[in-house]
């Protein structure tokens, strides 16, 4: 595999008058101890769009994604510098309440990770933590989020069965329902379909497509067809930098950077 220049970069411009930016990183750097895993990435993410992050293993996609809702805070010895602008606030600063922030920036992980609780309790976990105890409101939340996650019809007869009894694809959609129960602005997903079979994968993809009417979605994926199918924008990560960021169509048909071209045509990675 070639070594590509890290200075050869194309990041698309957004017209900020017509395109609303939901969240934006500015010169984001992530250090694991002394090792710099993300080397100054500045990406704006447009509201109500799906943006894919693609790139080879170890290129820093997960690290970048996790720093957006500051999940990297939980890893000892990790330092994140730079800005993450959300609603005109730099949420990468100490005076931001990360628990409040995570209400609005939710996350779904690679392996479906429902709690060992009923479906109902899985979804009401966060609302209850934030003080919602009205049974009727909780019922509504459960129904709405399960419907949005396209799981309602399959589980509505027994909401009190264990979340662990669901199949992989259903469990992942439960996790999506759980993440959107708080009506977040932004949904971060780290390879949400890579542990699933093709049929479950396509149900999850359909779910995401319908969710983008109400949520801004940023998704890490290993699967380039998936990125091409569902996302509006795609960012290509290489060695801790975003080398190219453009409309998905352009990334897959007319990439401007050699590294991107080689990656999407399967020449490395």
């Amino acid at each position, binding site marked *: 595999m070639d070594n590509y220049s890290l200075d050869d970069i194309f990041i698309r411009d957004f017209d900020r008058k017509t395109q609303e930016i939901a969240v934006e990183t500015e010169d984001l750097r992530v250090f694991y101890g002394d090792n710099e895993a993300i080397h100054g990435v500045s990406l704006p993410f447009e509201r109500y769009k799906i943006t894919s992050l693609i790139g080879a293993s170890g290129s820093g996609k997960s690290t970048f994604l996790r720093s957006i809702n500051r999940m990297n805070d939980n890893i000892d010895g990790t330092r994140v510098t730079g800005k993450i602008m959300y*609603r*005109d*606030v730099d*949420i990468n600063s100490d*005076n*931001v*309440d*990360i*628990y*409040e*922030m995570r209400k*609005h920036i939710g996350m779904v992980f690679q392996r479906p990770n429902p709690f060992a609780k009923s479906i109902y309790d899985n979804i009401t976990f966060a609302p209850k*933590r934030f003080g919602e105890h009205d049974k009727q409101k909780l019922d509504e939340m459960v129904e709405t989020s399960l419907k949005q996650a396209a799981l309602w019809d399959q589980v509505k007869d027994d909401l009190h069965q264990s979340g662990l009894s669901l199949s992989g694809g259903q469990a992942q959609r439960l996790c999506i329902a759980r993440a959107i129960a708080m009506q977040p*602005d932004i949904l971060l997903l780290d390879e949400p379909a890579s542990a699933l079979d093709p049929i479950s994968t396509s149900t999850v993809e359909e779910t995401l497509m319908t969710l983008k009417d109400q949520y801004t979605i940023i998704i890490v994926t290993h699967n380039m067809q998936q990125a091409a199918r569902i996302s509006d924008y795609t960012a290509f990560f290489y060695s801790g930098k975003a080398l190219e960021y453009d409309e998905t169509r352009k990334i897959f048909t007319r990439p401007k950077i050699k590294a991107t071209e080689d990656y999407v045509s399967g020449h490395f990675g």
Partner: protein
Amino acid sequence: MDPIREAMLKRSRSAKLERRGRLISLFCIGLIVVIVAGIFYFVASKGLATFFSDGVNLWDFLTHSVWSPGVKDAHGSPQVGALPMIVGSFGVTFLSAIIATPFAVGAAVFMTEISPKVGRKILQPVIELLVGIPSVVYGFIGLSVVVPFIRSIFGGTGFGILAGTFVLFVMILPTVTSMAVDALRAVPSHYRSASLALGATRWQTTWRVVLRAATPGILTGIVFGMARAFGEALAVQMVIGNAALLPNNLVSPASTLTSVLTSGIGNTVMGSLENNALWSLALLLLLMSLFFNIMIRWIGKKGELK
């Protein structure tokens, strides 16, 4: 102003609770550290006084075999040879661990590999029950069953290292067994599948693959059992005979560090040499339990690397 932005910039209740929780847990850990450090300081200062203020030679303490702190020898130095107790303690500890290990491993293999159902439903509760029996009960049974039995076979009083070993063997067996069971259960089932699919028998799989993978955990269990045996006072004291003499066989009255401590501590005056000498024994016990702890961590670390 944007309400979400406002909420994010305010310290929420959960953030405040979190800070309070952190303070509380910091306080708890601080208290534990202070208590442990205090115990070490106290035992060490008393135990070292034997050597620094009463002028007892450390080497003599560890190697001489006459224990009568009240009496001075021909050279005028006090007779505090702890060798009989050291031999007694190590004797009962190692012997009971050596006897308990095969039984514990065998029982654990039965409970996990051969008959997991019976193991989980019947044997597990039995073993947990055995762990919870107070040591005085073990001692009492030892005194009324084991000691007379040994007396009838070997003659003499029946008290001694053999009786102590037997009581400790029964006491540590459940501890070692349940830790061995945990170690065996922690071996991933795909190890077993891999071996069985290569045509190995169940016995070969258990012996060559499962037990091999569980060795660090089993060793940890054995050392745990030894630590428990080394520190056990009451049950041993009831059956060992409590004679501070260097034992020359397993069936004559002997003593351990703990048995001398428990029988002597009430009969001495604080600050006297007799009292300080007992503290030196306590210090030795403390250092030994520290040693067992380090062993356990070391074995755990070794096991991790593989």
